[in-house]
């Protein structure tokens, strides 16, 4: 069986990921590109005689080497790892999408244009001449709809057949501006060879530079592309292939870009019919969603809805999970007792593993709903509008509206949120965003709020949980503001931060894309429950059942208790001077859910989140003097201190600095302590 490697390239928001998912389904590998934290997705599948390996490359508008995404994409395409490039273009925004297409064609590898979102094009009453388009571009053009799954097999067939073919096989039937070969004084007639033919002046230059390149680097292939890159003053190519002869008197980039767009305009004018009806829906929706006055309240309302759904529907479903867990735990316990298994081992299995890991699994419904909502916001095209709506407020904090996107994603999971800060070009902005994003309350902290607010705040439980999200946002804003007061003079010198983001057209989110988005997160969550939380639960069980004298029924004699009691003085001033809580918080650095799973082990409450388990826990807590104010202090501290080991690892990777990572961790613990201190002592005034 033949293996075919296909690279998926396309502008951001062209539906590339939806198309990629249509082929690979949930069966994909997500990793980072070697050396950089830009997400790399890879999937394999079989069709007829071929095995296909699809690689989803980062979205890019062009193939310059200015951003990390573009560099990754370009290097990967140029490597031998790709047999065929599939260029995914949003057919409803053909003009801008074709710019990347022209650059891909110039790279000289087999390219196939997948015209995506053809269903939207038709719905708008537009038509694209799919016979004329390949004639003008010299590459196969396949109309597809990733959402309706049409054209998928044909696209792969085209890839298989086209893998050895370059543009030469395809007839190129076009001329610019109706000019025949007679009107040019350039010695070569390129219109039959290349889709993109430049003006005589540029073509002359390309020939000269190409010849010089051939002289100096005889082994170099695709001279035309390298010559163009040299003429554009591309930093990477200029450094790799310096040429003599003073041919590169200046950058011709402006002309090269302009001529490409001129050609695109010709193509679009020829192949696109009825283009005036475009985008009426998006403009209407934007009337409200980006309204100068109402835009912000609408956004806040949407977020309030998201959390309302997360808590209400999530909690309702959680009830069923708890019943399942209770049944399972009881069955295992009676089964083990029946088999006469040694009590310590039963304790490890039931009180350690099932209580710890199982307790966390019951929060799955809340988390699924939260990620469902975030996926919806991202896939519909609304997220980019939020950047615009929030730009004014973020500007006062010395950040651009774009920094707000990682912050919203932080409600889901801090790790991808920190990775998303990579989209910020300004380094100062990136580091600031990385510093404040962990204060946004991620889904792993949610179990802590749900558990403790239900235990102590009864009818006000949801309000108490909501307040954590607001508090996290306030702390993030305050930290950004303080940093801004210190560095705004320097920031102004470095050019300042300003918003630049594409606002894609609104579309009904694809159910399949959302399903995969959520499934990947659920898988992460389950993996975490099976690994980090599993190990942490076992570890906690050992710490809490063994002491200097070996296995001990008395928890006060165990290692865990000794460690906790040693650190208690640090936590006493903020209302958390209980060794059990201290141990849970320390364990929580591995993953925030561990705070909850540890409580299950610490207070020997097996089904922690069930009504019976909760009343048992509240009894134990009441007996050690842990009241509502302590619970609120615990929630506050959990919200603000180090999110998890994975977050620290991501910060290290992104900042490439251990010092910065360490500083961040110390800073987070410091902020958590100070804010919790304030909350606790203000609370004491009223209690």
């Amino acid at each position, binding site marked *: 069986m033949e293996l075919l490697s296909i690279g998926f390239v396309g502008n951001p928001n062209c539906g590339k990921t939806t198309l990629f998912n249509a082929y690979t389904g949930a069966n994909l590998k997500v990793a980072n590109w070697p050396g950089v934290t830009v997400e790399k997705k890879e999937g394999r599948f079989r069709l007829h005689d071929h095995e296909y390996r699809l690689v989803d490359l980062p979205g890019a*508008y*062009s193939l*310059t080497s*200015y*951003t990390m995404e573009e560099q990754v994409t370009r290097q990967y395409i140029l490597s031998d790892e790709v047999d065929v490039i599939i260029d995914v273009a949003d057919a409803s*925004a*053909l*003009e*801008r999408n074709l*710019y990347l297409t022209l650059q891909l064609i110039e790279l000289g590898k087999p390219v196939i244009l997948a015209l995506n979102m053809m269903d939207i094009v038709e719905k708008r009453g537009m038509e694209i001449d799919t016979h004329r388009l390949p004639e003008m571009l010299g590459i196969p053009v396949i109309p597809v709809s990733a959402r309706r799954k049409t054209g998928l097999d044909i696209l792969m067939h085209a890839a298989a057949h086209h893998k050895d073919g370059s543009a030469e096989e395809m007839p190129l039937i076009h001329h610019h501006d109706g000019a025949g070969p007679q009107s040019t004084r350039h010695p070569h007639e390129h219109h039959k060879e290349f889709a993109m033919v430049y003006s005589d002046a540029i073509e002359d230059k390309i020939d000269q530079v190409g010849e010089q390149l051939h002289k100096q680097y005889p082994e170099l292939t695709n001279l035309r592309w390298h010559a163009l890159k040299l003429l554009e003053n591309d930093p990477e190519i200029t450094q790799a292939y310096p040429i003599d002869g003073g041919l590169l008197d200046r950058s011709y*980039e*402006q002309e090269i*870009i*302009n001529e490409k*767009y001129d050609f695109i305009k010709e193509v679009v004018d020829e192949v696109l019919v009825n283009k005036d009806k*475009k985008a009426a829906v*998006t*403009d209407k929706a*934007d009337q409200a969603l*980006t309204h*100068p006055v109402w835009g912000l309240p609408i956004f806040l309302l949407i977020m309030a809805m998201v959390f309302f759904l997360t808590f209400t529907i999530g909690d309702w479903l959680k009830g069923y999970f708890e019943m399942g867990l209770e049944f399972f735990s009881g069955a295992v316990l009676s089964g083990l007792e029946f088999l006469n298994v040694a009590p310590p081992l039963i304790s490890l299995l039931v009180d350690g593993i099932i209580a710890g890991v199982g307790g966390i699994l019951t929060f799955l419904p809340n988390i699924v709903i939260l990620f469902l909502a975030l996926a919806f916001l991202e896939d519909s095209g609304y997220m*980019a*509008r939020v*950047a*615009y709506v929030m*730009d*004014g407020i973020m*500007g006062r904090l010395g950040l*651009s*509206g774009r920094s707000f996107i990682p912050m919203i994603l932080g409600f889901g999971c801090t790790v991808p949120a920190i990775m998303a800060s990579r989209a910020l*070009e300004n380094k100062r902005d990136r580091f600031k965003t990385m510093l404040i994003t962990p204060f946004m309350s991620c889904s792993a902290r949610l179990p802590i709020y749900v558990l403790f607010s239900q235990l102590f705040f009864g009818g006000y439980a949801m309000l108490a949980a909501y307040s954590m999200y607001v508090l996290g946002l306030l702390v993030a804003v305050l930290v950004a503001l303080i940093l801004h007061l210190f560095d705004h003079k320097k920031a102004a010198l470095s*050019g*300042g*931060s*300003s*918003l*630049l*983001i*594409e*606002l*894609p*057209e609104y579309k009904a989110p694809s159910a399949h894309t959302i399903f995969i988005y959520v499934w990947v997160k659920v898988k992460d969550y389950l993996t975490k429950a099976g690994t980090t939380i599993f190990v942490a639960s076992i570890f906690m069980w050992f710490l809490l059942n063994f002491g200097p004298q070996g296995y001990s029924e008395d928890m006060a004699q165990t290692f865990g208790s000794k460690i906790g009691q040693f650190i208690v003085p640090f936590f006493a001033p903020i209302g958390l001077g209980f060794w059990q809580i201290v141990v849970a918080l320390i364990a929580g650095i591995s993953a925030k859910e561990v705070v909850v799973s540890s409580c299950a082990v610490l207070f020997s409450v097996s089904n922690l989140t069930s009504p019976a388990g909760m009343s048992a826990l509240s009894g134990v807590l009441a007996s050690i003097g842990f009241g509502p104010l302590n619970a609120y202090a615990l929630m506050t501290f959990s919200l603000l201190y180090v999110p998890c080991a994975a977050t620290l690892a991501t910060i290290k990777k992104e900042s490439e600095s251990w010092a910065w990572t360490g500083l961040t961790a110390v800073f987070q613990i410091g902020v958590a302590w100070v804010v919790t201190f304030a909350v606790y002592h203000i609370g004491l005034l009223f209690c």
Partner: protein
Amino acid sequence: MEKTLQEGSAGQVYRVQGSQLPLALRRRLQALGMTSGCPVLILRKKPRGAMIIKVRGGRFALGRAIASRILVEEA
């Protein structure tokens, strides 16, 4: 008459004349199609803040610091 894009008003089309932006940002905008001579439509504008523009069939949100460094003339 030349002015900056920031001084433009919503609903109007302008023609790009040039920019005084750092090189990397300028090249980014060019790759998005904002080359000199290209028409830009301002769709929406906050009084003292960011704006939404339409360039070559694409919609972009543009911050004040960028918009005030792009020179345009009325088309």
